[in-house]
């Protein structure tokens, strides 16, 4: 490292290579990846909703 900040061009190049690799996946594999992402988002939303309800009940009890 010669300057104030490190050279991260190798990391960026690796990310770009990964994007290209995923672009070349068979469509079915892409569908599976999107469906997994969607399930994760839905489960996070459900957890957030449960948390919101718990907090709401707690707030009511404290009033």
């Amino acid at each position, binding site marked *: 490292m010669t300057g104030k900040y490190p050279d991260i061009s190798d990391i960026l190049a690796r990310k770009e290579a990964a*994007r290209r690799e995923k672009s070349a*996946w068979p469509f079915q594999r*892409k569908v599976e990846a*999107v*469906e997994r992402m969607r399930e994760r988002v839905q489960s996070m939303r459900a957890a957030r909703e449960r948390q919101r309800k718990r907090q709401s009940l707690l707030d009511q009890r404290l009033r």
Partner: protein
Amino acid sequence: MALSDTILVLNQMVADGVIRQYAIGGAWAAIYYAEPVMTEDLDVLISFDDVSGADRPGLVLLTPILTYLAAKGYSDFQKEGLSIEGWPVQFLPVADALDAEALEQAQQVDLGGVSAWILRPEHLVATALKVGRAKDLVRVAQFLEQELVETDRLCTVLKKHGLSEEWSTFCVGTGMRNPCRDVS
């Protein structure tokens, strides 16, 4: 919940004459060409055989589709999309010359064992440029960086549909070389 089941319903809609033609656009079309990204709905560009009501509002145009799908048990809306086999589908009637050309030149592809119509990458880029939201412009950059478009074809589409200025602005803003300058 499988996307292929949703597409089978679209194919059946064409077979039953409810729509003349369809093509998958938006995020799912981008995913077909590029890397998978999170999306929660399926955008479908459609046209009708009966164009007598083409001057009616979009939601009125969709009534026959919604009636047909309701009879098959698909009547739940998730946000703005009608849920078909677990995927919210957003039907978008052809609304301008770019849409019409995009649908006409859509490609028939095999999506994991199911045949489907999908917009060409050049029309996806042109439409993203036309819509112009931040996420659309990211898609434009992604397609260019990964060389997913045919330059000559893209430049022709942009010029034909009056998007050359938006394109130049995009290239200047992102620091990309404008490939259409080199195309006669």
